[in-house]
């Protein structure tokens, strides 16, 4: 399926959000995820099924003022 991850279009066989994170080699307990503009909690990623053309945001801590 085609997903838009952090603004970049890519192909993946992942069916759930947690599978996608694994496939893209994301790691750590400091990530926040959103799909199509809605927060997906850490604990819900395994059950969150993705659809073709879903827009996924994966954010992590950064310095800020």
């Amino acid at each position, binding site marked *: 399926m085609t997903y838009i991850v952090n603004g970049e279009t890519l192909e993946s066989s992942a069916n759930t959000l947690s599978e996608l994170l694994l496939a893209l080699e994301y790691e750590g307990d400091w990530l926040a995820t959103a799909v199509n503009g809605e*927060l997906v909690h850490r604990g819900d990623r395994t059950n969150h099924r993705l659809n073709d053309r879903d827009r996924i945001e994966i954010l992590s*801590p950064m310095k800020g003022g």
Partner: protein
Amino acid sequence: MLTLYGQELGSRMLLGTARYPSPAILAEAVRQAGTEVVTVSLRRETAGGRQGGAFFELIRELGARVLPNTAGCHAVSEAVLTAKMAREVFGTNWIKLEVIGHHDTLQPDVFGLVEAARILAGEGFEVFPYTTDDLVVAERLVEAGCKVLMPWCAPIGSAMGPQNIAALRTMRAHFPDLPLIVDAGIGRPSHATTVMELGYDAVLLNTAVAGAGNPALMAAAFAKAIDAGRAAFEAGMLEPRDMAVPSTPVIGKAVFS
């Protein structure tokens, strides 16, 4: 003692974590300032989580309370989602709410700010709104559920210092019991002293410290300036007067002619 949303803090200096020459210098600045609250942000992670992880570890080691921001958000929906994602990552209800209305001045979109503040307060967030010195906007933010206000004193990163003392004074007088933090526009320690003398509860700094020749030394200088301004406010200052007043008593002075 400063209390923000029920949290007692010994330091009245809040510090941003951006633009330092190195992570070690950031850590030293935090230590020198004795700051207990640092601001942080969220960005797209492209390195599988490792970039953010390194920064997260540094922040944990600082031992300070974290105040995540919604920097760079121009839409209400964007700011609200960023706040929710920040709560997920940092595990705090605190959010420095920024809804930017203008690219050049980074002036807050105060209409969007009030709307976003209302939504977030309704979802249990403890909102620290980055706002202007407009009194009506301040009232709307309080109505929306904000129990702290953070007016600018000049545009972000401008280092211009307080541009409208009268407005800051009015805001302080209008909200005598609400914690007010000057956020943005401070360039040097004397600016911080000035707003603390007006009775502001705290100051949030970033560029003025991070961009200094010696950020750790500047952090220490700001900490002293903020403490001095606060002590002066608590001590009660003289008002300026038009006429000279002799400081040495004249009664009993010898008469030689």
